[in-house]
């Protein structure tokens, strides 16, 4: 990984969690390479998390995703030791959480990490304000102090005006906002979110995801987000860890996982995802296309290049490779006939260009009704980085199988 060590806020090494009475025995069998089912048969112990190692960077949303029973909720509970890890280490900043005494652990939970739960975990006998202030109350802050912070947190999640109501008077989505406000009020660097949005209706879920991303843009927390919903994982996650049977199968960005799944399981898993919103121009980029330099190449030269490349349209750049527009075959023939030396008069500059981060979904409307490829330019200096062909966009959005797709993209790029 290319990050500086100082950027890493949570680090897990060989984290293992075993449920059952004969943990030691089970751990030994696990270390000797026995399978989960064999260990269950021999010791009646279940392996919840199997030697998970990962690093979470400061300020990122790290998603742990897997189906139910994959060990993701057990894993997140190892980070604040709601589940006591059987083996392995968790480092938070510079201290080893797995080694902390009870007192240190309580301190860590109070000041370093807060948590949001699938079932909200609100206190029904307390008002929204008191619920949001709960973590601060546990920490021992004065009423004035904690209520002020809780009010700010409630405002952040859009619950201003609900302070004096009780949880049962609020909808599920609003209750989870209270859960989120309670976590934010503690102002910890790390937020642990355990299936926080899984119990919500699809529409509200999507709203909450958007809101979480907005809040994250403002507050820059480090968020560990558990979900069983791949689309959710892809939407909110900077990086995603995919879990199966307690093992982390792959860690990477949404796009890496989609484009180069590490295992068959991951591949089967990601097949169902809506690729349009994930795949970006960077992946589809056709690098080093044939270009025309304005002022250096005349119509004759352009025609030659077009013939060589077998294309009827070419991108035009300036001396610094900055993208200017396209020229077409017919115009070049026309200019050649009229003996015009410069191609400037035939340059189509009113064309869209995109950045590397544009998704297929965002690019599709830009190509409809036109016949040129999309130019991908550098955000800073407008340099042409490459082209995204219409063919590859259409293939992405219509979802061919992977081999078919590669074949088609290859063919398209060969054009």
């Amino acid at each position, binding site marked *: 990984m290319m990050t500086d060590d100082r950027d890493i806020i949570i680090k897990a090494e060989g984290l293992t969690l075993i449920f059952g009475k004969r943990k030691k025995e089970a751990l030994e069998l696990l270390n000797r390479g026995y399978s989960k089912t064999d260990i269950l048969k021999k010791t009646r112990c279940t392996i919840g998390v199997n030697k998970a190692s990962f690093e979470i960077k400061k300020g990122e949303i790290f998603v742990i995703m897997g189906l139910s029973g994959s060990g993701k909720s057990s894993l997140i509970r190892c980070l604040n030791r709601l589940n006591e890890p059987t083996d392995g280490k968790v480092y938070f900043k510079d201290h080893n959480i797995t080694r902390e005494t009870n007192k240190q652990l309580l301190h860590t939970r109070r000041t370093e990490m807060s948590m949001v*739960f699938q*079932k909200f975990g609100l206190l029904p*006998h307390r008002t929204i304000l008191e619920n949001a202030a709960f973590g601060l109350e*546990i920490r021992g802050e004065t009423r004035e102090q904690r209520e002020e912070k809780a009010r700010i947190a409630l405002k952040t999640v859009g619950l201003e005006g609900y302070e004096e109501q009780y949880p049962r008077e609020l909808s599920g989505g609003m209750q989870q906002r209270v859960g989120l406000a309670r976590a934010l009020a503690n102002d910890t660097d790390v937020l642990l979110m355990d299936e926080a949005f899984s119990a919500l209706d699809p529409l509200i879920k999507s709203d909450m995801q958007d809101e979480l991303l907005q809040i994250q843009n403002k507050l820059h927390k480090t968020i560990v987000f558990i979900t069983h919903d791949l689309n959710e994982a892809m939407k909110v996650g900077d990086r995603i860890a995919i879990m199966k049977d307690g093992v982390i199968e792959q860690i990477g960005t949404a796009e890496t996982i989609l484009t180069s799944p590490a295992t068959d399981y991951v591949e089967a898993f990601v097949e169902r995802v809506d690729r349009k919103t994930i795949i970006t121009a960077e992946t589809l980029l056709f690098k080093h296309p044939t270009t025309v330099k304005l002022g250096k190449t005349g119509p004759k030269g352009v025609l030659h290049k077009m013939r060589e490349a077998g294309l009827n349209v070419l991108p035009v750049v300036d001396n610094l490779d900055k993208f200017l527009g396209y020229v077409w075959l017919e115009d070049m023939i026309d200019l050649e006939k009229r003996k015009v030396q410069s191609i400037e008069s035939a340059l189509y500059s009113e064309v869209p260009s995109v950045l590397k981060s544009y998704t297929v979904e965002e690019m599709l409307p830009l190509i409809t009704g036109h016949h040129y490829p999309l130019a991908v330019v550098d955000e800073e200096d407008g340099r042409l980085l490459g082209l995204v062909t219409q063919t590859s966009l259409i293939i992405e959005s219509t979802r061919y199988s992977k081999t078919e797709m590669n074949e088609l993209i290859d063919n398209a790029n060969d054009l």
Partner: protein
Amino acid sequence: MEKIIPLGEYIERGINALETNFSFLWRAIDDGISWTVSFMNDFFLAIPFVVFLLVVATVAYYAKSRGRLFSREGLKRGVGLTLFVVFGFFLIYGMGYWKEAVQTITLVLVSTAIALLLGIPFGILSAKSNIADAIVKPVLDFMQTMPAFVYLIPAIFFFSVGNTPGVIATVIFSVPPAVRLTNLGIRNVPGDVVEAGRAFGANEKQILYKIQLPLAMPTILAGINQVILLALSMVVIASMVGAKGLGSLVYQGIQQNDIAKGFESGLGIVILAIVLDRITQAVANKK
């Protein structure tokens, strides 16, 4: 039949040993309970009947109307029990049993207080520890199934006759629901709320006082209601060891074959039971 296992003899010997070795303790308990009972008795009797009646009627109305004292809804809810208190208490007074009724109320209140003081901590303990639960449960079963009369014997032995053995026997008989329902209430607190508390760094004490006890309160209050009713149901039996009140009038009615006395005092107990039950239930349901 020949006695092969003289269990009763062992028990008797054990109780004897307890009596002689810890006599200072029994003395202290006796003094404490006797003093409390007679103090409360004198206090209640010093209050004029009408004032007492008004206080109870107000409490009944307040509990029933759930804080909506002056609304039509509050009136609709509260009026029934309030009227019942007024008529019931006047009936007891009119029958000439007010003094005995106050003695019974005192006995029930003191026994209930002691039962709760013992029962709720044991309930908390058995909710927190499965081992404690495994020990406490059979003891409670034993206490509830053993005929109540049996408790009278050691109670007299330790405290001779009077109010104290009556209170002790009543406490033993009425403590189980306090333990059981406290235990149940705490165990039924949703795991996710407790887990949320832990995740925010709450220690065991904070989890108990800020999460478990408040959420278990409706169940605990239901337990308190049960304790009061069981205590009231013990007054006749307690009167056999010298506890004063309506119970002893019923007992006299039985002994003297006095139908009038027995019926009247029995009715007095029923009235007290209904009033205490409805008020505590209303308080429990308010949460």
